[in-house]
């Protein structure tokens, strides 16, 4: 069979006519062109693979890790003389701690906009994304109680959200479980929990000095006849917690145990401005030495009686963003009882005292487009003159938190931060290049097949 098959196959093959003459040189050159095209296609394919790899890496990496800039040179701690709107894909402070922070911002990033906490290093000016474990969503902003930067910028104090609770369960109030401090130099967190069946609500959170935190919380009550929380909250009480110590919080009280109705401000150096009986008398009180409380005069409320931003100096001066019919203005009360109003300085925020005669405030200024802008200025309370302190970007930023210890040091020029490239840019470029190259390959293949 096989021999027969060979013969029959040979016979069948002989059927084919002698092929037409062919130019071998043409075949050779066609082969060479094909070789060149295949080499080029292989190079393109290699590029595609590399781009796809880069894109894949961008997808897998957490945002901000792809193009981490080398750490900037450290200098003495200082505030930056200018703030910038944070770029995309910031490096996380957990990945590369840059504390202490000179500034804490809350800024919207990305699309859709997602609010993030951002710290600005006091020693390098670098910007870092900050995640506060167990904290309230950054979308809530700082408000008056959400997060607070310690005077040196080493810690960020914040409220701990009660796990599993929603604000809707408590009449719109966030149910909290305690406070925590985030160490900006290490990313570590210390927690101080408050036992309460339905959680607590936030009243006040401010630093007595760089290691003592004052916080006041009200206990959320239970709704009568149910096992659910009510919408009511107690005024609660205030405690001082030594975040570097081993002891738990201690209640804050006036000498003799007199309760304190309100803590208005802190001088950042160990004394709180307190209002024991609600608007009648004010004292500068060191929680560790209550008997040495110093009475001071404060013009605190505006014409509508609402509370205003207040900053106390070490010598007992107070600066207030007081209110009038045109908005808010800077009002300063001296320890001897004299008061001075600076109605041409439309101060909406008071950051603290730079020294005995200069206070740092946030000023609002009308702009040409009518939207208005803000700036941070230093005001000489003896003359009323203001000078730019920290320049704000034309694009609005939420009011920042400043490390008050650094207010006495002239802000320094940190230059434009070297924003990391958003990994999504790499992904977008990679995908775009991939699509283009695949399209080009497809067109090329079609032409070749014709």
């Amino acid at each position, binding site marked *: *069979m*096989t021999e027969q*098959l*060979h*013969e*029959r*196959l*040979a*016979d*069948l*093959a*002989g*059927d*084919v*006519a*002698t*092929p*037409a003459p*062919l130019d*071998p*040189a043409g*075949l*050779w050159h*066609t*082969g*060479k062109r*094909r*070789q060149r095209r*295949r080499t080029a296609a292989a190079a393109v394919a290699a590029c595609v693979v590399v781009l796809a790899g880069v894109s894949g890496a961008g997808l897998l990496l957490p945002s901000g890790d792809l193009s981490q800039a080398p750490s900037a040179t450290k200098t003495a701690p200082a505030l930056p003389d200018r703030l910038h709107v944070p770029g995309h894909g910031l490096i996380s402070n957990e990945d590369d701690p840059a504390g202490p922070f000179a500034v804490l911002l809350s800024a919207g990033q990305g699309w859709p906009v997602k609010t993030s906490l951002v710290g600005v290093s006091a020693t390098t000016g670098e910007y870092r994304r900050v995640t506060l474990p167990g904290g309230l969503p950054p979308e809530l902003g700082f408000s008056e109680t959400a997060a607070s930067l310690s005077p040196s910028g080493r810690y960020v104090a914040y409220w701990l959200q009660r796990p599993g609770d929603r604000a809707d369960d408590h009449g719109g109030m966030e149910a909290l479980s305690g406070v925590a401090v985030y160490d900006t130099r290490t990313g570590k967190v210390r927690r101080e929990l408050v036992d309460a069946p339905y959680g607590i609500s936030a009243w006040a959170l401010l630093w007595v000095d760089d290691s003592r935190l004052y916080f006041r919380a009200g206990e959320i009550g239970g709704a009568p006849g149910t096992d659910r929380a009510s919408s009511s909250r107690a005024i609660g009480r205030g405690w001082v917690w030594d975040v570097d110590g081993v002891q738990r919080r201690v209640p804050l009280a006036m000498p003799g145990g007199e309760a304190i109705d309100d803590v208005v401000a802190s001088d950042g150096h160990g004394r709180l401005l307190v209002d024991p009986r609600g608007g009648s008398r004010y004292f500068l009180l060191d929680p560790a030495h209550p008997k040495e409380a110093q009475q001071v005069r404060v013009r605190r409320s505006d014409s509508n009686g609402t509370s205003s931003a207040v900053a106390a100096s070490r010598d007992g001066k107070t600066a207030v963003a007081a209110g009038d019919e045109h908005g808010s203005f800077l009002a300063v009360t001296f320890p001897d009882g004299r008061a001075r109003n600076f109605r041409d300085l439309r101060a909406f925020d008071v950051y603290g005292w730079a020294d005995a005669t200069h206070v740092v405030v946030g000023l609002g200024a009308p702009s040409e487009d009518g939207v208005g802008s803000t700036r941070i200025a230093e005001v000489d309370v003896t003359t009323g003159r203001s000078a730019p302190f920290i320049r704000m970007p034309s694009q609005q930023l939420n009011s920042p938190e400043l490390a008050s210890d650094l207010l006495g040091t002239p802000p320094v020029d940190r230059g434009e931060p070297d924003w990391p490239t958003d990994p999504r840019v790499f992904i977008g470029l990679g995908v775009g290049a991939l699509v283009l190259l695949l399209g080009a390959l497809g067109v090329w293949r079609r032409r070749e097949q014709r």
Partner: protein
Amino acid sequence: MSSAEEQFTAYVGARRPALVRTAYLLTGSAEDAEDLVQTALIKAVPKWGRIADDPEPYVRAILARESVNRWRRRRWREVTSDMLPETRTAEVDVAGREALRSALARLAPRQRAVIVLRYYEDMTERQTAEALGISVGTVKSQCRDALARLRVSELAALS
């Protein structure tokens, strides 16, 4: 003209008719056979520096693989003739050739390639396996199956 190109030119001139005959058995069409040979020769050019001493196995391997791949890519299926020879004689006649061509056309492309390489090119099973990039076992099984199909076709032709 480079020496490699000269060698290539000489090889094409000497071996192209034989390659076309093999390709004819693989494709069943003279036109496709010439096209297949040209493709195989063009594909051999980039490798010529390495195969110039003995290009035949490489070119035949391309020829066989390309015939299978073309079928896969284009789903080429030859239109087979229903004409059968009236009688089967010891001497190969026109009808016998047509019957064989029809029987080959009914084989799967790889089976056809195995039959052509094994029984026309007289390659061993190992050489056939290397040329087609398949295992020797696959060559054996494909060959067995192909021969069985050819026999059935032969019987059909006889009937």
